[in-house]
């Protein structure tokens, strides 16, 4: 009881990791993202919130060029990672995605052993010199994914045999195994129960020490719990971006207020 400090979730890093300027995204004729400017800080959890179809996932997918895989999708504007344009012709999207990892809505482990799920990325990126190296990488990633203690005795068992929450933490461990700098998470807890959700949230908070995390979530409470910065998207526009505390206690834009308080805008 002698610790009287309130744990404030301040942004302790002011370096910009990703800087997006005037980003536009089109799906065919549909203008999905309109003129979005945002600076994502390093070693900070940034939450993207907004109603379905507001463009938050689309924008997230711009950050590691996942939209390249959609033929009719066109991205304009600049997205800089550490000051370098990720849409530059010389950038290899595969290398980019090793730097900017991603975790999806539903856990999607490979139909392989737990060990191989983690080892896959480091192997193809040549991060391990030998088996001992690889073992070490796998253990470190599983520890970071907060799942090591649960799986260390059955690394050869199939990843798909784990529970949903464990599978998702396995996927997060897989994403961090390649030592990314940014971790994108697209509704990582929507298929999890409340306890597994809290475990993943705790994990996200720990990951913040090493990575910049960007999370898309439909749960406003989750955004409030895990993030230091929050961006509210609406109809393809970035309506408001600020410190999470400010967004949830005193939003400046009426649309943000309507959305987070659950009103018809």
């Amino acid at each position, binding site marked *: 009881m002698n610790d009287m400090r309130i744990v404030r979730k301040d942004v302790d890093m002011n370096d910009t990791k990703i800087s997006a300027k005037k980003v536009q995204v089109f799906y065919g004729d549909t203008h999905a993202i309109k003129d979005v400017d945002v600076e994502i800080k390093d070693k900070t959890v940034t939450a993207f919130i907004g109603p379905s179809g507001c463009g938050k996932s689309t924008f997230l997918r711009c950050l590691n060029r996942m939209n390249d895989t959609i033929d009719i999708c066109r991205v304009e504007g600049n997205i800089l990672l550490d000051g370098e344009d990720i849409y530059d012709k010389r950038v290899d999207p595969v290398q980019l995605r090793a730097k900017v990892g991603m975790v999806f809505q539903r856990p999607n482990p490979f139909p392989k052993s737990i060990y191989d799920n983690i080892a896959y990325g480091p192997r193809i990126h040549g991060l391990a010199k030998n088996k001992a190296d690889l073992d070490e990488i796998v253990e470190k990633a599983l520890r970071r994914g907060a799942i090591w203690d649960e799986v260390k005795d059955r690394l050869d068992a199939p990843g798909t045999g784990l529970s949903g929450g464990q599978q998702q933490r396995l996927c997060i461990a897989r994403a961090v195994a390649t030592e990314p700098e940014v971790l994108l998470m697209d509704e990582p807890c929507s298929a999890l129960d409340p306890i597994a959700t809290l475990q993943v949230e705790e994990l996200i908070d720990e990951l913040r020490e090493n990575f910049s995390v960007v999370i898309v979530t439909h749960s*406003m*409470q989750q955004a*409030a719990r895990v993030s230091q910065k929050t961006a509210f998207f609406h109809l393809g526009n970035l309506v408001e971006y600020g410190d999470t505390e400010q967004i*949830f*206690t*005193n*939003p*400046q834009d*009426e649309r*943000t*207020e*309507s959305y*987070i*308080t*659950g*009103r*018809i*805008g």
Partner: protein
Amino acid sequence: MHNDSKHIASAFDRDLEAIQAMIMKMGGLVEVAIKDAAQALEERDVELSEKVRLSDKAIDQLEESVNEEAARLIALRSPTASDLRTVLTVMKISTNLERCGDYAKNLAKRTGVLVNMSPIEGAAPSIRRMAREVEEMLRLALDAYIQRDTGLANEVRHRDLDVDQMYNALFREFLTYMMEDPRNITACMHLHFIAKNIERMGDHATSIAEQVIYLTTGEMPEDARPKGDVTSQTALGAEDL
């Protein structure tokens, strides 16, 4: 920023309206208590002062209900932004009103003692004027609350200066009476506590006005609130008489 549009969950709107209705009901009871207590003092009406003492129970019960409802709203609805500020401010305002109710009850109790003493000339009407001013401030503060009117709230904050000045004048008057004749001391002490308590009610009305500003703007007023109570630095000697 405040938002007038409806929640998607209509029960949430009903809950927020209900809790604010409790505040208005409390406010109404407190206004009547102040008015009746001051009237009972001036008219030396023991029956009316007894009524004031009994009515405080209803105010206390309402405060408890407000707290329970606020806790329920926080637990079940996780209010954010202006909804959160509404819940936080109703809790504070109910505390302010409950204190005012206590002061009115205390006034009524002291009236029960004072009726057995010879009256101090001019004191009761002055106290009644002061009570009327505070009652008006409280009414305006609650109007400002319901209308989310920061202009009106600021007006209330500045009116507290008048109450403070009335109290300063009474304070000096009582000192004078006591120095004139020690037999006045008991009555003057009671009257002084009454005046002090009414002055405190003015502070509570001011605090409610500040809550209105916080509720509407998200920030507490920055300028220091006007203060006019100088009695804590007042020394009155025989040479002043």
